[in-house]
């Protein structure tokens, strides 16, 4: 059995080696999250930010951002009242995807995308519009991970701005596989 042989070899290798203690929790030495804002961090990662004061503005703004798109694909967790009157398309055919973020991280400028909302709408359309409640924004990655660990889905994505690559001659290109445009709509919960 490979498992027992590998474990036997690990134990043999470690025989007599002094054990090292875990140094304790990671602290964000130096990133000074208390002075930063999620908006700045997400913009720095190449994302766009819309701050909406009222829940009733969300559907209108999403409709405007969708422009003349023939339809949108929608994540399972997006409330109906956030959605404009547009045809629903499969993610692979939709120019715009709309998702609900589970939360966000100021320290890294990341949106937390839950698999229960649907991964395809988060990844396939070239434009991704993401609604995030202000009160789910965590100051540090550590705080965000602590908040999600009691309830982990099959997949959790941290999306920090649009898809990027510099693999062609070190020149930065957006939208290589994932969305090339990502807009975070930050709303105050009513």
């Amino acid at each position: 059995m490979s498992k027992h042989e590998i474990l036997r070899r690990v134990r043999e290798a470690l025989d007599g080696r002094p054990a090292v203690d875990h140094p304790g929790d990671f602290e964000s030495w130096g990133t000074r999250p208390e002075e930063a804002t999620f908006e700045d961090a997400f913009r720095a990662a190449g994302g766009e930010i819309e701050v909406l004061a009222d829940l009733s503005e969300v559907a209108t703004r999403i409709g405007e951002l969708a422009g003349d798109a023939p339809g949108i694909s929608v994540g399972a967790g997006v409330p109906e009242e956030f959605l404009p009157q547009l045809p629903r398309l499969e993610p692979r055919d939709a120019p715009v995807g709309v998702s609900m973020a589970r939360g966000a991280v100021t320290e890294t400028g990341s949106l937390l995308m839950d698999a229960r909302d649907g991964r395809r709408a988060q990844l396939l359309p070239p434009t991704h519009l993401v609604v995030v409640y202000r009160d789910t924004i965590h100051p540090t990655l550590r705080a965000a991970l602590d908040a999600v660990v009691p309830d982990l889905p099959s997949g959790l994505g941290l999306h920090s701005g649009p898809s990027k690559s510099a693999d062609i001659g070190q020149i930065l290109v957006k939208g290589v596989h994932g969305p090339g445009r990502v807009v975070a709509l930050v709303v105050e919960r009513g």
Partner: protein
Amino acid sequence: MSHPRPSGYADAAERILREEPGVRDSVTAATRTFHDHRTEAFRAVDEDAWRSWAREVKSHLLTHLDAYLEEAEARLTENGVQVHWAETADDALEALGRVVDQHDIRRSVKGKSMLSEELGVNEYLEGRGVRVRETDLGEYIIQLLGEPPSHIVGPAIHKSVDDCRILFHRELGTAPDATPEELAAAARRALRREFLDADLGMSGGNFLVAETGTLALMENEGNIRLSTSLPRVHVAFVGIEKLLPRFADLAGFLQILTRSATGQPIGNYVSLLQGPRRPGEPDGPDEVHVILVDNGRTNLLADDAAWEALRCIRCGACLNICPVYRQTGGHPWGWAYSGPIGAILAPGLLGLEEAMPLPYASSLCGACADVCPVKIPIPDLLLHWRERAVEEGLIGHTEALVMKGYAAMATHPDLFRKAGSLLRWIPWKWGGRALPVLGGWSGEREPPEPSKASFQQLWDEGIE
């Protein structure tokens, strides 16, 4: 073309320098950019606190590896993941082959994974008639060219924009003067079809959290998100050293990895995966397999000095700063991992004899140790493997003889003084050219005249 091996290092390096001077330009420019961004990213944080913390976590993990491997397997199994243990590359490929047979897989996509390079996954699958598409843009470029990766993080950094223009014109029909944006858009269209048609998605694993059975993957393009989300089967190759004890440890490691690799605060996309699609989830793979790979790692763990190399998180910072790596890129190293880290992993994972002369592919300048996010003492370990090579009689007789002679001289003061005074009377201007090694150096340089008195003589005469 014969399969590249470490033993071909010198010839391969010489060939690149003579025949492909553009490689040095591309690699040097790209690695300097990576390194500058890294420097900037660490200016904002307490670099020493971050690196010391990361070193301690990884050393803790490795000195308790048996317990964490068992914990990881238990959590993965609870999450519905099928776990395979592979002692060798062949074991890992057989495990993959069983999945391929069981699901009658014909088409596959793969996110960038250096372990899959180490195992030879693409050749294996193609040999069984399974289509494999690399989906990272850089990996896709070199797959089309039939080349191995040149860098752990940027596999195609040795290629210029013009190289890509020519390639994509031939393969994808883009205009000969296409912009990088147009080239990337053409690759996106071609690879989107591959993602949607594939039955199998493959990945590596940046981290595997024992506490939760979480497979953590980081990238910038979204191809790993797609490879692990769209096909019905996902297979991940994970080296046994890639574990982390706790979920909260990811907070440090995800940030340290990208700050070290590209200088970003975090990769554009992080996937934290806990197994197959669950009831109520709209999509995701039906089946997830994790192949835990030893393939020489327990040999390295058993070495009382070199085990520290297993802390490596594959950021590539040591490649980016290495003056030797910058001249040629990674191809001369002749296997998956190149640069300083490749030179100290190779003797452990391949065996020292097979890895020769890689521990010598370094000037021992020590810059790599200054940037390593987990503080691996790379120069010490290069020397460690060189000592072992001498002990095992793996280096040429000439060098062994010279070293022995020098040792005899340096431990006999009288002999040392006599030899020193002899060297000072050699007419270096023309005589130096006739000497081995020095001849090559002085061929294009003006050698300095040596002082007529030795340091000891000057000291005795009372120099300040």
